[in-house]
């Protein structure tokens, strides 16, 4: 840990070095450990730490960004000079107005806890042992990330937050099947490695000897990990001000209109008790809870300072680090829980598929937001409300807006999730969707 005081000192010294009209400093501290296991043994075990600095300078609406991780006086001076040079040589961006002014940052309490190598190895071993006892092979990763983020600008912004997280995930392999499970928590002691192991082992055993099934349209029960993987690209391409105003979003021109089923509400809440909180965005602007879609009606998209000023609306605090060519993103979005239990949802399916998770989801067309991908690590046929047998994995081609218009029911609780393939959805319920298009099968 570097600490708030030291990071403020560094930020202030860099701000003093800059002769730009406006200057912003982002300091990012990371201390990470990761214990990775496969074939029932630890095979990659590592730790790394870094302190990075990113500098954005503005000279007459011309913006330059330089980054580095050296903090001696000479290096910092070079960092500032590089950014100034980049800003000077370009033409002004007429749309750029200003970096954000200081605003009050909500206070959040977050624990910072380092896990020891022994704790991580022990968690991994719990999963390995359970898999071994069942005649299966465990693979997975147990990570501990501690981070500090400090953002300052020459208009007086200074924001600091520190937090930590632990994430244990596993894929257990059988001869003909696999099973996935994961747990996330702030502290290693709160990770339930026994439950992770039991869930993954059960899934693997239950999905042994899957049979092929004809592709086509099915009802699906998507478990939370699958919901997260389904929603990942919506998060990037949906309520994003840049894409919305370029008319490239499935939500473009739909403000105030019914875009999804009435049972779908999407919330972005950086202070939810189950997420890793983030009180400000990457411009040091305060975050708040937002309702993006309420009962299927589009209520709000998300902005950073650039797009808020460009379109003369309120900044919602969703900036990513500069330079940002992606647009503002809701990093704490989730689908609001419904009123059914997972068991009730399965019971209501006449003939459909239970999907543990999705894999390699990619966008075919960002405006239609249709995606393709595979099922993975446990797919099951449901008939007359009962899980009857495992099935081989299937490829789907599915429009996300259509899926969100065909939601039958939503689970009454949210499950905490960790990013697996870049998804940023930290919370998700199980969902029952009436129509999901599977286009082909694979061989396992």
């Amino acid at each position: 840990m570097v600490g708030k005081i030291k990071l403020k000192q560094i930020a202030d010294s860099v701000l003093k070095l800059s002769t730009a009209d406006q200057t912003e400093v982002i300091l990012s501290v990371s201390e990470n450990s990761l214990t990775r296991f496969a074939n029932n043994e630890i095979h990659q075990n590592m730790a790394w730490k870094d302190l990075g600095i990113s500098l954005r300078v503005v000279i007459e609406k011309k913006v330059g960004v330089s980054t580095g991780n050296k903090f001696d006086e000479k290096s910092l001076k070079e960092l500032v000079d590089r950014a100034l040079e980049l800003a000077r040589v370009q033409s002004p961006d007429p749309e750029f107005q200003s970096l954000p002014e200081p605003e009050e940052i909500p206070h959040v309490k977050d624990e910072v806890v380092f896990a020891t190598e022994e704790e991580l190895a022990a968690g991994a071993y719990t999963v390995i042992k359970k898999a071994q006892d069942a005649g299966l092979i465990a693979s997975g990763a147990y990570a501990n990330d501690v981070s500090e983020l400090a953002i300052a600008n020459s208009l007086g912004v200074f924001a600091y937050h520190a937090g930590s997280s632990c994430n244990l995930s596993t894929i257990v392999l059988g001869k003909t099947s696999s099973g996935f499970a994961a747990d996330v928590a702030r502290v290693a002691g709160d990770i339930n490695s026994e439950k992770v192991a039991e869930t993954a082992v059960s899934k693997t055993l239950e999905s042994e000897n899957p049979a092929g099934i004809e592709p086509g349209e099915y009802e699906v029960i998507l478990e939370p990990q699958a919901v997260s993987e389904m929603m990942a690209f919506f998060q990037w391409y949906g309520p994003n001000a840049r894409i919305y105003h370029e008319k490239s979003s499935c939500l473009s021109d739909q403000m105030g209109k019914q875009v999804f089923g009435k049972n779908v509400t999407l919330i972005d809440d950086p202070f939810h008790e189950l997420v890793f909180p983030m009180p400000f965005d990457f411009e040091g602007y305060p975050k708040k809870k937002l309702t993006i879609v309420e009962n299927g009606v589009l209520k709000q998209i998300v902005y950073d300072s650039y797009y808020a000023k460009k379109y003369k609306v309120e900044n919602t605090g969703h900036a990513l680090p500069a330079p940002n060519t992606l647009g503002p993103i809701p990093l704490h979005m989730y689908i609001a829980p419904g009123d059914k239990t997972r068991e009730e949802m399965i019971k209501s399916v006449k003939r459909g598929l239970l999907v543990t998770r999705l894999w390699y989801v990619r966008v075919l067309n960002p405006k239609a937001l249709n995606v393709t991908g595979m099922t993975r690590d446990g797919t099951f046929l449901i008939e007359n409300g009962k899980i009857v047998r495992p099935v081989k994995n299937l490829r789907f081609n599915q429009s996300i807006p259509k899926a969100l218009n065909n939601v039958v029911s939503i689970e009454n609780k949210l499950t905490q999730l960790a990013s697996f393939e870049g998804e940023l959805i930290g919370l998700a319920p199980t969902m029952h969707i009436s129509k999901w298009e599977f286009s082909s099968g694979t061989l396992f």
Partner: protein
Amino acid sequence: MMKFAEEILSKIPSVTYADVRVVDQTSEDIATKDGVVEALQSSESVGYNVRILKDGVWGFAASHDMTPDGVDQTIKKALAITSASLLHKTTDVALDDTKPSTGSYKTPIEEDPFGVSIEEKIALLTAADKAQRVSDKIVVSQANYQANREKKYFVATNGSRIDQEITWTGAGIETSAVEGSEFQNRSYPNSFRGQNQTRGFELVRELNLLENAPRIGKEAVDLLSADICPTGEFDLILDGNQLALQIHESCGHAVELDRVLGYEASYAGTSFLTPEKLFNFKYGSDIVNLTADATIPGGLGTFGYDDEGTPAQRTYLIKEGKFQDYITSRDTVTKLHDINSQYNKQSNGTVRASSWSRLPMIRMTNINLEPGGEEGTGKGPTLAELIADTEYGIFMSTNRSWSIDDKRYNFQFGTEIAWEIKNGKKGRMLKNPTYQGITPEFWNSCDAICGRPEWTVWGTPNCGKGQPSQVMYTGHGASPARFKKIKVGVVKW
């Protein structure tokens, strides 16, 4: 920096094996949107890592802190990690007998990209960006340029001592057109950051972005009203830039020995190319020759030595359709020796880490479909000849979407654009093209590969693998090729 690397190594107490990498990465990125600079960034990251093999287990620690105290803490951390791993050890890590290497390597470049003025780069990009806007249906025009330099200093307790300077450069343009609910994209010379190679700014100049910009803009607009790609089983000709990604996903990842042995099962998955298939599995048709070659001039996966100190090599993965080899590392190849007694090779030098803070692991180098007309592959036609030889088919170019299952069997790709081929002639433009298949069936249906004049080493700078995730730059040599009776037009929108 080499002296610093040696100092770190000298501080590591007696262990089975240890190596140290000190890495200094610099990059420059420019992105324009609608004729205005949207991102202009200069980045540098410097740090080091120690990798220790002790009592049969690995420990790895990395840090930006280059003070004597920082180095001591990093070594101490790596040793503590080996101790933790040892608590639950079941097998010993064994390294192969690769001989230590001493040497230097520097990417040969004609024009240093970092030496070209920013003003010139911006002028080139903004001109190409604006030149795409040939219609008011174009809602976004973009151009991008990136240059990267990686200085690596590697020392190991076996006596290896290597310094390398890898430089790679890339650029491209992209247009988005919208009409009502219809959205279409075109990119040049490739999607997802253009073309990238281990070359200097000469590559950017050769791409002729400005000259190609109006055509790309027009194609994006024409796609809005083009017919939808028909559905059926047709002969499919893939342009080199799409075939490059097909190779990447269905061959490159499938032959990574760490995946095959289950070491990536927790994330990216495993592979259908299991060890018993080695030397006898018919992966593709007789004309299919796939190589891993880190020695090709300009390839994005070209270097002098890998991150274990093994010299760059060329390896046949698939020869005349038969599965011949994996891409390997020093600690996985020994496991393969145990599994398959016919396999007695040492590491073929494919281990790389994406930064100083990441563990080196097996990564694709340049994974190539060798051009037709060479080494017993029969005639290597030109693309024009290939089209003329096709009665009915679809010609697809430039990737738009990609997805493949976790054993690398079932894949689906979409491209930005396609054309119908009828009676040997390229006809109407088609939008929203997709195709789907199962990897060995697909490669066994390959009946023609264009020759070397149309063979290009395409760069794929965004290959993800590992936990924590590592994004690596890889290359894929490919010329257009034809595949028989492929499921085309599998998705309609």
